[in-house]
């Protein structure tokens, strides 16, 4: 029995060492301590009434929190700049859908690709249930060739209420 427990301990230590090493090197790696919502009914997906077949997938709060752990995910706040400055998901960049520069859209998306590459996971959000700019921005980005768009329709309100990381000001962090 002693040797059994010794073997078990060695195997577990080996697994701990391997997992932490692989995680630090892997592009799919996650932080060792993550941020998870404190509310309990976080896995129901909010979908806007105007959603259509072929829209990018809508994700729940827990899925947004899971994606947030990833290194190469980009959160995009689709609300107006004054809302963004008042408070946003920490690390999110601001692309106000209502203020997209319609006269020079092509150039705008060329610049945006520099900060938000097309192959990355992208999460768009706005205020929550009464706004649709996250959906419209998600559709627009999908049409620009973004392949991994997720629309977090529960948005700012769900995120903030769950006690997940937020910040103020005109900078992402």
């Amino acid at each position: 029995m002693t040797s059994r427990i010794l073997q078990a301990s060695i195997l577990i230590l080996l697994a701990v060492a391997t997992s932490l090493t692989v995680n630090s090197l892997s592009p799919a790696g996650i932080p060792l301590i993550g941020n998870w919502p404190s509310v309990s009914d976080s896995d129901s997906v909010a979908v806007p009434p105007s959603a259509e077949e072929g829209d990018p997938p809508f994700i729940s709060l827990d899925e947004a929190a899971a994606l947030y752990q990833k290194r190469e995910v980009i959160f995009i706040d689709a609300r107006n700049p004054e809302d963004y400055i008042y408070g946003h998901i920490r690390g999110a960049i601001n692309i106000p859908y209502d203020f997209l520069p319609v006269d020079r859209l092509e150039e705008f998306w060329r610049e945006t690709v520099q900060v938000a590459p097309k192959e990355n996971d992208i999460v768009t959000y706005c205020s929550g249930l009464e706004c649709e700019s996250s959906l419209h921005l998600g559709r627009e980005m999908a049409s620009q060739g973004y392949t991994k768009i997720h629309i977090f329709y529960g948005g700012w309100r769900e995120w903030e209420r769950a006690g997940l990381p937020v910040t103020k000001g005109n900078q992402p962090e």
Partner: protein
Amino acid sequence: MSDTRSIWHNDYLGLVSRLAVGLIFIYASLDKIGDPAQFARIIYNYHLLPGQFINLASLIMPWVELICGVALILGPGKDGAILVLNALVAVFIVAIAINLVRGVDLECGCFTVSSKAKSNALNLLIRDVGLLALGLYAMFNKATRFFLFRYPA
């Protein structure tokens, strides 16, 4: 009258049970190793672990499954490996049973992290009790043939 001792010494049953449990865990580990963020979300939805331990559990658990699964099949450390795997299944059974009592249908997180399909907790419980029975048999089987490597027991 059958000889009850012989079941615990049957080389072939020992081999089959070790192979089965080992392969099940190796297979189960692969998807989770590939996407720890999604596996962490599934663990979070069991609502059993405090938030600060969720990511660590989601990173380490699949590697425990993989390494112990391999050790169980190849032989070195197989006695320790089956102990760890049976303990894991016992933990799964408790976790699923708690959520069965709570009346929650879970995402299992057993073999895949890619679907949001909920599983019926009672089916998961029955499946894991079967796996534990198989694992306990593998643990108490005394056969020593068919190891690729021998190791002091």
